[in-house]
């Protein structure tokens, strides 16, 4: 599926056939496409993409892949307005977005962002078959997003990444039961002067490698014509995910192609799903310019090297 197209000096290489899913592929009207969470189910990629409807509301839709590698996006929302009656909930009145999927103990956990009258919060749902969905409720304080569950427990406790608005940093918190959360710690912050100087946030759910938890995150630089969203990478200790081992000084993917530069919001690459394929390939699903879903890949070796040795790069 992937043929590499070298573009600039990005660590992540774009698929030649990008974009993977355009608005025109949807078979129903919408305003834009905002993100894609990814999972493997029955040996195939399943995506949960965020669609903004023409009304302005957002919902999360299931996308299946066919034999030719094309994605079919379901019209009925999987999570969000018109998906079920929860739309009456004032905490989700504007819809749901940015699904991040984690497979754990035989279940696919989906953390998403619920947007309502009083702010945005992390919601949790789970499924075993991508047909039936179980809701676990809203699990954060308001104006916290970027929820992504770790696929393993730490000292018997669940852990999640989160991105509270205050401070624009990535945090971690823990829970015994997925309902009550505590032990919040900040683990990664914006860096003055860098490409991720204005704010950072959760990208894909944490990826367990042999020597670390790999976190793909997004970083924003503010320019006079608006934010510039890029993707970065950082490594955390396998046993203590608050402990930073390495952080790339350079982005791993920056908007360069037209489909990344031109859209409802220009100059955005934003990732909510990634996975390891064939042991050494890291596949990243990303949203470009809030208008389409794209895919790129790199090697684990390359990304770890970048985290460890990019200090000398400029």
């Amino acid at each position, binding site marked *: 599926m992937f043929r590499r197209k070298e573009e600039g000096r990005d660590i992540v290489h774009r698929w030649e056939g990008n974009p993977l899913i355009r608005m025109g592929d949807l078979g129903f009207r919408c305003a834009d496409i905002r993100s894609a969470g990814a999972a493997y189910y029955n040996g195939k990629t399943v995506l949960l993409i965020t669609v903004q409807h023409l009304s302005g509301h957002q919902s999360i839709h299931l996308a299946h892949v066919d034999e030719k590698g094309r994605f079919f996006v379901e019209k009925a929302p999987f999570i969000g307005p018109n998906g079920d009656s929860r739309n009456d909930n004032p905490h989700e009145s504007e819809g749901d977005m940015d699904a991040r999927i984690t497979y754990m103990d035989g279940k696919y956990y989906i953390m998403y962002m619920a947007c309502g009258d*009083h702010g945005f919060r992390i919601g949790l749902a789970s499924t075993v078959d991508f047909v039936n969905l179980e809701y676990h409720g*809203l699990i954060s*304080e*308001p104006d*916290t997003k970027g929820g992504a569950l770790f696929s393993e427990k730490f000292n018997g406790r669940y852990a999640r990444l989160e991105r509270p608005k205050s401070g624009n940093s990535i945090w971690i918190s823990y829970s015994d039961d997925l309902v*009550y*959360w505590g032990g919040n710690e900040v683990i990664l912050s914006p860096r003055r002067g860098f490409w991720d100087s204005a704010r950072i946030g959760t990208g894909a759910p944490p990826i367990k490698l042999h020597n670390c938890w790999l976190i793909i995150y997004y970083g924003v630089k503010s320019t006079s014509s608006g934010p510039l969203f890029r993707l970065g990478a950082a490594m955390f200790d396998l046993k203590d995910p608050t402990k930073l081992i390495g952080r790339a000084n350079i982005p791993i993917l920056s908007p360069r192609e037209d489909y990344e530069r031109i859209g409802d919001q220009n100059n955005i690459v934003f990732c909510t799903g990634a996975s390891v394929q064939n042991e050494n390939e890291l596949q990243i699903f990303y949203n470009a310019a809030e208008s389409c879903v794209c895919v790129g890949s790199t090697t684990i070796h390359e990304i770890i090297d970048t985290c460890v040795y990019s200090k000398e790069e400029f």
Partner: protein
Amino acid sequence: MTTKQITGEDLLKRFEGNPIIVIEDVPFRANTVFNGTPIVTEDGIYLLLRVEGQQGFSVFALARSKDGLKFTIDKEPVMMPAKEGPFARYESLGIEDPRATFIDGVCYIMYTAVGPRGGSRIALAKTSDYANYERIALVSEPGNKDGVLFPRKINGLYARLDRPIGRETGSIWISYSPDLLNWGKSEVVMTPRYGFWDEYRIGASVPPIETEEGWLEIYHGVKMTSSGPIYRVGIVLLDLDDPSKVIRRGSSPILSPRAKYERVGDVPNVCFACGAVVDKDENIKVYYGAADTSICVASSTMKEILSDQI
């Protein structure tokens, strides 16, 4: 205590001897003293005070009294921002606005930890002698403050009111916990009211007081003016079994800045309560910070408060 009418018709009557604590009463050099929470002890009424140091970071001092009016302050601060350990990175810029709640005989203090990363968070400590404080945990996400603990479990869970910012609006929320460490099931309780005195921002002030009719919450409401905010004190009754439900909310404030000590100070036009004491005759004394520069007290009766507008 003797009260005096200043101007207007505030429900809470100011103590004639206000302000009861000013910076000159603090035995160490500091900038201001304000926002103290009362603790009823066997030896009298103590106040855990927020003292703002000259560098701008706040610490806590202990004031002791027999009568709740005439206080003597301990020679040294009783709690300073943590210099090491897990709290250090979250409160290096100060500890603020303590609120004391007794649960099953244990005196808990919820306070605001202020740090460089993400601003303020709610923290929890406890004390047995009021001079030494043991930190328990940081209990909120960043960007949250004004945490007040309910004095008992509700439906088997600890509960707190807090003040996160959602959609750029400061509202009063509730969260629950099985163990005081892990918190969840957060819900909005009430929001600012457009056009009212509390239209800009609201937050919990006094730890909830249990009455037959419901939980009495004395909160702060802010109106924004062209010359800055006006902080007033308001009241609301919350359902005893489900305190996320508002039973009745006062339409008017029960205390507004009018006296000179409330109008003039580092932050003018502020009345900010951090605790109250209800005696056996159902008289209530509300302790509040005035203009972020002194500690004052005003009183009423529970009957009057509950029958006033709510």
